[in-house]
């Protein structure tokens, strides 16, 4: 049985990946954050938390998955989301991912800079998608473009961001000027 301190340490170790997992399932930053907080609350209250890092992460994802399913039921989402096999595949993908909290932090810092460097029209699309939570179709309506064109833009801008982050990390000491 894990004590409180090692429990919070474990939880922090998996913070980014767990939030990413929840985000992958709910696909909305606000909802993902709320569910993440709720998972945290529940984790700290459970007594049989596994002490092994991987088992612990899987256990957290289990709690998160239940909360997300509940959330979906309350929102009556598209039935495709309940495709069990797809959820299992996503679970597998996260099982295989290595938690790299420190790297994730550095990436976030780099990302903040990279977002600022984006040209306005690119940042607008990113804002609409990831802040306002609009779908490609809705963004397309606003910009009078097809959803396919919007997805192309999103792909391109995301690739730019990835590249920008990698180059900053390669330069070393992301965030220290």
């Amino acid at each position, binding site marked *: 049985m894990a004590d409180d301190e090692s429990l919070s340490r474990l939880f922090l170790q998996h913070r980014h990946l767990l939030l990413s997992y929840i985000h992958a399932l709910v696909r909305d930053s606000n909802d993902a954050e709320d569910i993440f907080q709720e998972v945290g609350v529940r984790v700290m209250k459970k007594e049989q938390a596994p002490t092994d890092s991987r088992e612990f992460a899987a256990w957290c994802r289990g709690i998160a998955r239940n909360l997300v399913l509940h959330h979906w039921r309350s929102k009556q989402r598209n039935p495709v989301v309940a*495709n069990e096999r797809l959820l299992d595949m996503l679970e597998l993908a996260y099982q295989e991912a290595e938690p790299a909290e420190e790297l994730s932090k550095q990436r976030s810092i780099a990302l903040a800079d990279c977002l600022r460097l984006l040209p306005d029209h690119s940042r607008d699309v990113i804002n609409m998608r990831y802040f306002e939570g609009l779908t490609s179709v809705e963004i397309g309506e606003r910009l009078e473009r097809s959803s396919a064109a919007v997805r192309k833009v999103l792909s391109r801008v995301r690739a730019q961001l990835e590249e920008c982050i990698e180059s900053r990390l390669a330069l070393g000491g992301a965030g220290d000027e």
Partner: protein
Amino acid sequence: MNERLAELLLAWEDDTLSEVEADEFADLLGNDSAARANAVDHFSLSCAIGEQLQESLHDESVVRELQRMPTVARSASEGPSASRPRSRVGLLITVAVLLMVGFIGYRFDVHKLILDKLGGQAVVNVEDLRPKVTDTFGDVQIVRADDSTNNIVEGATLGLGHSLRTSKNSYATLLFPDGTKFELRGDTHIRIEPLRSGKHLTLQRGGLFASVAPQPKGAPLVINPDSYDRVEVVGTRFEFVRDATTSVVRVETGKVEFGATERAVEVTKRRESTASSDQQATAPRPIEPETIWRGWGHGLRGDYYDSSSFGGQHFARIDPRIDFHWGKQVPDSSFKNEFSVRWTGEIEVPQSGEYTFWTVAHYGVRLSVNGESLINSWASMGAEEDGRPIELVKGKRYPIEIEYWDRHGNAKMRLLWSSPSMPKSVVDQQWLYPANNENSDAEDK
């Protein structure tokens, strides 16, 4: 990354995958560990972007507000923010500023401004704060700010500052546009507070069962702000009862914050906490789910008559469960020493199988389920009676009717059930649904 995978990932995030595409997506992930790694990277980037955008907006609005209000900024760190465990300092400060702004009387416009920037969510609209009265039973009154009252009509919308008062044996349901529902017990008095930073209500006395839909970020629903029994909730189901001295909150699902702001405790699923004016909220303790009152959608309708033969003076109410021991008392002070009750509604079972119903009734009882008479003991005199077992299927609702009478005191009536997989217990509210025969309401006094 594989182009098709990239398309599917974006479609998944848009929630526009068809069943076929969902299968294709699952196949792609299942067959290729590189695809799985790509997917995780993709989602992690989406997540990080969302987080960064929120963060930068928080920071900007905090900076702006701090510049505008230097006095607030200084006290922000010792503000009430301590009771809101949040991961980000930026948000903490914003919340503190928000609360302080409200406190020093900036009121609506500043709230609006900050909330707007905060979550990127729609500003709390006045219309979202005004509940409709969707369902009433018996005598329910609306009380306006100037103390004028009139009887409520179903479908009426309550204004900010209005109160609703239910009398004994009556009830009402309040429904907000976002689906948040309050089911009010009899003898309850509740006011809609004229604040626009979220749903604020004051429960002066009585009880309610709340099903709260998720609330906008930074604008939780609050009952009894500034009181020892403050309840703050973002989205959950719970019961809240208050009398002159003591308040109890019982949570069915989710969590609420309960108690004076700086001493609040977090009450989670299947727990309760008590607070009173001279005692802060107690540490939450576990409760049996049966003890939570689940609102008027559950229970049986009881028609109570002031005679042993279902005639004479009459009132109706909904009883969450049939478990009474009146003794020498009568259910209503207007009754003399004999009375009769007919409970009607429907019953559902947790699992398909054979059920046995039991009654403990003084003086006599008749029970029928699904039209079959199971117990007919009009002079039962307090004995425990078991009915003929009956086969019931999960997911179906069966009509149930109980007739009961008493004359000589020692009045009691309990309805229990058992099955091979369930020990004998009082039939809980969650399995019962009241009959909806409004026509007899007219006779209510």
